[in-house]
């Protein structure tokens, strides 16, 4: 059970008022709000311990380095990475995915090699592969989605073959909320001799994740989607793979020796962290994980699922609604459209009541085409939401879309 006063941990709910109405924030799949503890961690770092890391030769720098490395250990434990050297800090999940596409893909893919993705990928797990495919001549294939918004494993099996070099799939869809069977997908990929990557942008924040149980080779997450600061993300990778991989960006911190025209590289994870990292960001992410763990990942997942189910049943009553959510394996993400009211208009209607949802293609245009819509409205829940938020959503929606129904003159207030 989630504490009922969780909202109080997040100062924005006390501070933001829209015409006196409280903020009902239902866009956590885009980015989450930040608890006071995370804001305080940033403040404390900058006010007391700020220094550059790793290269420091004085105590302040050592303290900053220790705090930064503790953050790495924290992330490693959070997803059960085994060793903290398996964690590379990045800007966000997008950079984690690009890092693999570039550092691994550019050096290991060749003409005709096959990359398998799925029909429900976020652009961040599509566009990097388009770029690398253009450079290497590799070919993209796709795991089909069923009519119940789930990945069709038979289609994965059909696609897998001797040319498959990597399978990269989203753990939880940011549009549908579907939890994909990534453990099974990784197993099938490995059986075919391919590597397996999981886009965990929407799983790490919402459930207990065990990357070694999943047995993925790579896993990407974003701090800002899990109560952490913007500008910090992480890549998990099996250490042996990191050791074998070429680096991504070049610069300070990632080298052993640099000569005018050649260089050799430091050990992972440093090899992949060129330049001064987002030190405060990492420390803030640690505070976020501390906070989430205190709330309990199992608790969070159950709470969101409950809200997702409740919202699905409440919204099903709305006339002309279409809900895009699997019958099972759903989460606290709920996409929908309403006949003859565009999602962007739905969002404005709700915004006028202080309810923040997202409307658009959610960086998943191929999925939108598959769903035969141009965009959807999406409500996404997190630990600070509760049933009254869902009721507000349903109420505002009913009221607002009435505006778009054929109306009598008297309705219009000029």
């Amino acid at each position, binding site marked *: 059970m989630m504490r009922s006063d969780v909202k109080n941990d997040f100062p924005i709910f006390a501070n933001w008022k829209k015409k006196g109405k409280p903020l009902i924030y239902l866009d956590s799949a885009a980015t989450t709000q930040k608890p006071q503890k995370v804001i305080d961690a940033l403040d404390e770092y900058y006010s007391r311990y700020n220094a550059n890391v790793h290269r420091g030769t004085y105590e302040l720098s050592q303290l900053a380095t220790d705090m930064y490395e503790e953050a790495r250990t924290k992330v490693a434990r959070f997803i059960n990475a085994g060793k903290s050297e398996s964690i590379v800090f990045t800007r966000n999940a997008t950079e984690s995915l690009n890092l693999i596409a570039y550092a691994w893909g550019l050096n290991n893919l060749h003409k005709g090699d096959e990359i398998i993705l799925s029909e429900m990928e976020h652009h961040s797990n599509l566009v990097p592969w388009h770029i690398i495919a253009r450079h290497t001549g590799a070919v993209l294939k796709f795991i089909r989605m069923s009519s119940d918004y789930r990945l069709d494993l038979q289609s994965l099996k059909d696609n897998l073959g001797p040319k498959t070099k990597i399978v990269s799939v989203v753990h939880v869809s940011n549009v549908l909320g579907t939890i994909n069977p990534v453990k099974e997908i990784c197993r099938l990929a490995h059986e075919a001799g391919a590597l397996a990557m999981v886009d965990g942008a929407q799983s790490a924040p919402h459930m207990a994740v065990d990357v070694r149980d999943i047995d993925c080779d790579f896993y990407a997450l974003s701090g800002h989607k899990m109560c952490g600061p913007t500008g910090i993300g992480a890549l998990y990778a099996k250490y042996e793979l990191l050791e074998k991989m070429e680096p991504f960006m070049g610069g300070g911190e990632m080298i052993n020796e640099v000569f005018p025209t050649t260089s050799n590289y430091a050990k992972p994870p440093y090899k992949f962290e060129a330049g001064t990292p987002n030190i405060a960001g990492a420390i803030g992410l640690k505070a976020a994980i501390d906070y989430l763990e205190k709330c309990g990942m199992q608790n969070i997942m159950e709470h969101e699922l409950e809200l997702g189910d409740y919202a699905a049943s409440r919204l099903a009553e709305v006339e002309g609604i279409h809900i895009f959510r699997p019958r099972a394996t759903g989460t606290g993400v709920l996409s929908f459209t309403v006949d003859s009211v*565009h*999602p962007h*208009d739905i969002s404005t209607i709700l915004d006028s009541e202080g309810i923040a949802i997202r409307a658009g293609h959610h960086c998943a245009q191929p999925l939108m085409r598959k769903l035969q819509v141009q965009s959807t409205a999406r409500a996404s829940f997190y630990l600070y939401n509760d049933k009254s938020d869902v009721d507000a959503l349903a109420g505002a929606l009913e009221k607002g879309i009435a505006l778009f129904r054929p109306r009598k003159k008297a309705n219009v207030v*000029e």
Partner: protein
Amino acid sequence: MSLNDLFTEIILDHYQHPHNHGIIAGATLTSRGFNESCGDDIQISVLVKDGVIADAKFSGAGCSISQASASIMTDLVRGKTVEEARQLAGMFYEMVKGTEGDYGEEMGDAISLQGVSKFPVRVKCATLAWHTLEESFAKTNNGENK
């Protein structure tokens, strides 16, 4: 600042029954615009003859504001010179930004989009068609050759 100021009857009417929807076969200018924030995607096609906009149509998909704005814009610019259309665009931007002024005479039905100025998030929707048109004038020698 109520929703009724935004979703006026005229807007909804243009949204539900858009004017000039389609593509002009012999267009001298075609241009496409995106609104990343909500996924609006609009195509404008225009036929310019001797500096005058002989015909203007739009297609694509989007929200009520972007669609209504495109519908109204294509009505408005038809028969105008390219220079006049540019001026209308400028005036329209000022109006939806909320700049005080008397827009009634020139703006025609577009005046019904004045309420957008109270909804900053929607300004981009209202201006999408106009920007798409205007930017392509520059790239196509005032719309005379694509």
